[in-house]
């Protein structure tokens, strides 16, 4: 019965999305009296979509095996957390989560947004409804999560063991909040193009929503990177896998949007460009969803390979993205370009930021699609690996962080290079000192990591420069947000460069009692023992790591899951203040020796610490902006 309740809620939500779209269209066509009807419909639609999602979660938690999706992805032997998270660890469930969050985004706009002109808001909610409608249809006609299975099996098949991890339980919801949250900016842009109201007020209204989605996206990517790092057991933190790229592309576009929105809100420049970025950011989210869900690009993350579903999503993409871009092409020409500015100015640096981010986005997109392109042209199957991405995007990214230091120190409209030079003298000096220190202390570091370390030092100091000479208690919260966000970039860059420059790795075959050396660590292999967990068995090695001081105990496991039968590698990671020791156990041989992979990764944790700082910066910015808007509104009410 429960499953049917979920399905009914989903149908009703779809019907309400249709109603929302129709009301918005009629209201904009002149039936002004309908304007007030759109907001409540959006809220009820969200409640129904969330109800359907809650029903699916319940089915997974109680392991209702008469539902096909549950039987295929759940098992009563799984711990509660993974039964819960299993609801979105599969194709249908994750799509349902997608539309539930889309509904939620629309409801948030309907309830909270007070700054947009009412007609633009209604056009925005109409756009949201149109997007929702297509994805509801996809769920109802092509991937119904509530499909019954007759007869019900005695036991389910379980969740992919790689996904049975606490980090993974909350990684997809976070990432999806970011992906789908960008739909708000997309709908704002379409709404404003429809009502021809692209101006600074639109940017001010859009900014908190972009910031919110961007924070979730940042957190999701950071968490996903850490998950891949410790769960896949390959020792890397970013693989340029299509699914990772699918999350990076919207992030790049959203980061560019975040900065161009600032220009539009403050200086009323870059109108058409900002609107296009708002369209592109969410388009990248949808393209990412499509690439992952269609199985058109093979990846470790892809769930189901089903070309019919792929075709369905592709049609939706063509409609929404094509429609929005056509609207942009037709209307953006009529948008008055805002105020002008000199190249050396805050605006100029933000334009450079936008161009570089767009170029990196283009590089990632081309690299991700290149295998498809090559197959279409030459019929060859190939993949593009880290060498391409690192070599093409790396230098641009370094240039970008350099501009990131200069930007906040420039004045709006026009500034002088000499003045900028004085402001960045101290960070530049620090970077130079770091360069000399590195060349002396650690010769032989490759160019890109070397530049990364040098820049990280300069950027870390330079990102704090906007605070110099300010009364810190009176500094607005969003300035703190920017400073901390930029500092986070420097911290993450330091971690990436240090990992790349100083990682030590060894692969050894040891018998119990033998030792190996990796970096400063001496590692003794004590024993291998079988152990059992709630739904797995494992071989667990005991290692003692020592570099003077108290020895560390590490227990990497090779886990074996019976349902579905899969082996996973559980790396044992010891975190010290100056890096991580990363150990993986491999296969044993007849002579009783075991393969061990050992890494010493100095300061690798800074990568994710930096990611978290960037997100914290986003949150502070968001709170600061919302607070200032509220104060301004109160002042207005007082007058």
């Amino acid at each position, binding site marked *: 019965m429960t499953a049917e309740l979920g399905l009914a809620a989903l149908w009703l939500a779809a019907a309400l999305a249709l109603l929302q779209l129709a009301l918005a269209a009629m209201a904009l066509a002149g039936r002004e009296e309908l304007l007030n009807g759109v907001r409540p419909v959006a809220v009820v639609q969200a409640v129904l979509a969330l109800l359907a999602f809650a029903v699916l979660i319940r089915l997974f938690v109680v392991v209702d095996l008469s539902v096909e999706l549950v039987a295929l992805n759940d098992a009563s032997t799984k711990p509660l957390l993974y039964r819960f998270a299993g609801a979105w660890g599969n194709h249908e469930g994750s799509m349902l989560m997608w539309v539930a969050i889309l509904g939620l985004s629309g409801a948030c706009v309907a309830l909270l947004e007070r700054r947009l002109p009412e007609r633009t808001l209604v056009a925005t909610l109409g756009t949201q409804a149109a997007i929702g409608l297509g994805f509801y249809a996809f769920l109802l006609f092509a991937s119904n999560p509530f499909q019954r299975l007759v007869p019900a099996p005695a036991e389910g098949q379980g969740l992919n063991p790689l996904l049975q991890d606490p980090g993974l339980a909350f990684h997809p919801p976070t990432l999806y909040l970011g992906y789908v949250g960008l739909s708000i900016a997309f709908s704002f842009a379409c709404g404003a193009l429809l009502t021809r109201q692209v101006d600074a007020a639109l940017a001010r209204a859009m900014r908190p929503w972009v910031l919110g989605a961007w924070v979730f996206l940042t957190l999701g990517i950071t968490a996903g990177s850490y998950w891949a790092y410790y769960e896949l057991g390959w020792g890397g933190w970013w693989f340029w896998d299509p699914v990772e790229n699918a999350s990076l592309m919207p992030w790049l576009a959203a980061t560019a949007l975040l900065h161009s929105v600032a220009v539009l809100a403050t200086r009323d420049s870059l109108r058409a460009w900002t609107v296009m970025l708002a369209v592109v950011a969410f388009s990248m989210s949808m393209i990412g969803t499509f690439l992952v869900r269609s*199985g*058109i690009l093979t990846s470790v993350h892809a769930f189901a390979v089903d070309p019919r579903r792929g075709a369905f999503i*592709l049609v939706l993409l063509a409609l929404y993205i094509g429609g929005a871009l056509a609207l942009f092409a037709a209307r953006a*020409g009529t948008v008055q370009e805002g105020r002008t500015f000199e190249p050396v100015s805050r605006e100029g640096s933000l334009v450079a930021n936008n161009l570089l981010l767009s170029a990196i986005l283009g590089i990632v997109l081309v690299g991700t699609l290149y295998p*498809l392109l090559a197959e*279409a042209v030459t019929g060859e199957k190939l993949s593009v690996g880290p060498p391409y991405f690192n070599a093409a995007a790396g230098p641009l990214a370094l240039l970008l962080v350099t501009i990131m230091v200069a930007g906040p120190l420039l004045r709006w409209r026009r500034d002088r290079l000499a003045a900028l030079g004085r402001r960045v003298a101290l960070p530049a000096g620090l970077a130079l000192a770091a360069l000399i220190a590195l060349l002396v202390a650690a010769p032989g570091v490759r160019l890109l990591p070397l530049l990364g370390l040098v820049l990280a030092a300069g950027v870390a100091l330079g990102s704090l420069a906007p605070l110099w000479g300010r009364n810190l208690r009176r500094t607005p919260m969003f300035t703190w947000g920017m400073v901390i966000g930029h500092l986070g970039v420097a911290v993450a860059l330091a971690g990436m460069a240090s990992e790349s420059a100083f990682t030590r790795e060894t692969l050894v075959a040891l018998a119990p009692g033998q030792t190996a050396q990796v970096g400063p660590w001496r590692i003794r292999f004590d024993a291998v023992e079988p152990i059992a967990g709630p739904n797995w068995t494992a071989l667990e090695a005991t290692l003692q790591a020592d570099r003077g001081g108290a020895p560390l105990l590490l227990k990497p496991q090779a886990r074996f899951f*019976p349902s579905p039968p899969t082996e996973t590698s559980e790396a044992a990671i010891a975190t010290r203040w100056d890096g991580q020791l990363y150990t993986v156990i491999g296969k044993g041989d007849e002579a009783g020796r075991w393969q061990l992979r050992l890494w010493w990764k100095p300061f690798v944790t800074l990568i994710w610490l930096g990611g978290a700082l960037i997100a914290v910066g986003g949150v502070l910015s968001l709170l600061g902006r919302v607070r200032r808007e509220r104060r301004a509104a109160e002042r207005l009410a007082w007058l």
Partner: protein
Amino acid sequence: MALKTIRWLLWVPLILFVGFVALVASGLVTPSTHEIRSQLIGKPLPDFALPPALPAKPGLARVELGQGKPRLVNIFASWCVPCATESAQLATLKRAGVEIDGIAIRDRPEDLTRFLGRYGDPYARIGADRDSSVQMALGSSGVPETFVIDGAGVIRLQHVGEIRPEHVAGILAAVEAAK
């Protein structure tokens, strides 16, 4: 910049996107080659020798397969739920005269005895593959899987997943064809 050039530029994103859709659509309609085909079909079995999984039954080695008669090699484990559901089909195949050997993956004798006691024992021999090495060598990624081996020791069929009632006829046909 002249206003006309800007107008024209505004259509560029849409044109690029149309190109993307065309590319991806062509990728979707070209027949997918993602399907995993067993690489080992038509190839002789790799060499292996597994110790007995139970004291009362012989183990399984490469030399015992391919001695003139086709045989089934069933990869299973007592901890595997689908393996229990295919026991009835294995019994049917045995009644039809098919000789079946088993490879028990990461199993313990006491669990195995209990499993065979409950679901029946169709196996002539059971080899113990404690670290999945033979399973890997056979190109099998999970349990259960079933191989049809012909009289010359060549792999004729790899059935991935449990044998459901509707699969029995196909497996029997493969055994016949391997004679």
